[in-house]
């Protein structure tokens, strides 16, 4: 489904070039959960940014469904759940999910929230939800339009065991419904939910 070949990214900061991501391959088939492991700073978020068509790689290519795609392309539906959910705090969970897409209706948003186990919290302002609930709203926002590819960056950061396992279970179920899923995490609790793992090594100055 999604196939990254030799993608790489460098950043220049304060006159020094940092290799955020050395040439890396990543692929995930439909129905598969791929775990991107690695220490903090190893380039996980950068790789997901490239896979999510938010960051243009300096080298390599991105194919989705066999077709080469560029940054900003909207032909393929990609669900993206960033590390921090950044919900609009005063809006209800349903309204936050409705922001995912122009055509996301209230009914669809409610279904997505139901799927992530938030049936009781749908109409509560996002800022009143716990960290784990907010992560799940963010997931619901990413999956509400049935994406072909789901990308989740550190979905369990700051969550207790119970919340973390719940989030991972939701991610697994989305893959089971046919999405290709890439999860970046330095959290080993995700292992049982994944089909494969790709480990990144720490980035270093060139």
């Amino acid at each position, binding site marked *: 489904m999604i196939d990254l070949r030799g993608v790489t990214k460098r950043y220049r900061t304060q006159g020094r070039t940092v290799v955020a991501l050395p040439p890396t391959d990543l692929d995930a088939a439909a129905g598969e959960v791929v775990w991107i492991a690695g220490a903090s700073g190893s380039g996980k978020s950068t790789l997901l940014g490239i896979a999510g068509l938010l960051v243009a790689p300096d080298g390599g290519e991105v194919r989705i469904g066999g077709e080469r795609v560029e940054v900003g392309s909207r032909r393929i539906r990609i669900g*993206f759940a960033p590390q921090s959910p950044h919900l609009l705090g005063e809006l209800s969970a349903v309204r936050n999910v409705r922001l995912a897409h122009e055509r996301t209706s209230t009914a669809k948003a409610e279904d997505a929230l139901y799927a992530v186990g938030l049936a009781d919290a749908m109409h509560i302002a996002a800022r009143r939800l716990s960290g784990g609930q907010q992560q799940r709203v963010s997931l619901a926002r990413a999956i509400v339009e049935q994406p072909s590819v789901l990308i989740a960056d550190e979905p369990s950061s700051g969550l207790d065991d119970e919340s973390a396992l719940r989030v991972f279970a939701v991610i697994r179920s989305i893959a089971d419904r046919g999405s290709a899923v890439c999860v970046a995490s330095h959290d080993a609790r995700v292992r049982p939910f994944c089909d494969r793992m790709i480990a990144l090594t720490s980035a270093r100055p060139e």
Partner: protein
Amino acid sequence: MRALTLARWLMPGLLSRYRVPTAIAIIGMAVFGTTSTLLGANASHTATDRYGLGSEALRAINVTSYGRDDDPSPVTAGALDELAALTHVESAHAWASTEIVLTVPDDAISLSLVTRISAVQPAPTRGAEPTRNGILLPESLRTEHGFDVGDTVTIEYIRSEDGNGGVGVETEIPVDGFFDDTTVGLDGPGVAYGAPDAVLTLLGASRGHSLDWMHDNFVFTMGYLVVDDLEHIQDVADVLLERGYGATALTTLTSSLPAAQQLMDAVAVVLSILLGLFLVVTAAGIASSVVSARAAEVGVLRALGWRRHEVLVCFVAQFAAFGTLIGAIGVAAVGSLLAVVSLLPPGVRVLGVALDPRLDLNGWLTLLVLTLAPVIVFVLASAIPVLRLARIAPDEVLRDIRR
């Protein structure tokens, strides 16, 4: 469109978070709108305020006959009617005077009964303008002799007897009011005021003429024309001189008046600049704090596929709505304040400004500007922060994670 939907969702939170500056802006609008409307009404040339810059007294021209037997242009009632029809002339008044004697216990007081022309005479201090046969007496008589409004007094006037000179006739007339005679007016000391026809009737009686005859033939010593605007006094005076009348403008202040008006205008300009600055600072302050509060969320929206212009529309709409709300509530407050002020008794002044709201064209224009200004100011003053929001790139959502 989802951008406008989101704007609508975010509006209540925006308003409640910034309710203090919003309230201050509305109060500022209300105070500014009310004072500038009142100042404007005071400064307006065409205002008919009794004492202000637009007063009729300052716009009056004294018209005289030459008084010769062969006077080419006698000031008759008919002649004044013609003068009243001249362009820029608001009204024309004939001035006449006749002697009466007011009977008071143990005394008799001689008074000149003068045609009431309120434009150039002191205002009633109590009571009202004289009606058909009532009179206005000087305040000093009220205090000395205990007269009051509604009293009936006895006066004596002279009635001519064919060829035999005249005889004194006593009659009772009502006192309609009093005027301040502590300073001598244009009509000199020892005057009382009566309605035009009442004065003319007594004057005619002393000469053996009916009121109708007086209207048709009597040559008045003088009359007054009230001109619509100070700027036209010279033009009207020129026409009068051309037609053979004597003409004297009552005011020699015409050169200093525009300066006084400019001062009031300047005050209004300074006030509006202050209000404008306040609105700009408020809007820009709110906008930049919204930008820093919303940057991460907007990053997520962009990562979700929101376009730049959608973010732009969403936030411009919020600030436009914010400005509209301030403008609408501010103008409603101005309207209510002016309505309250207009309930005050006439003649009340604060710091010399008559509390006499008159919504002339300028007043309406002020209100229109007050309604629109906050909208424009809010949109423009928030433009830079909002453009910064719209420029947030989708990959900001990754960058933010490291913080």
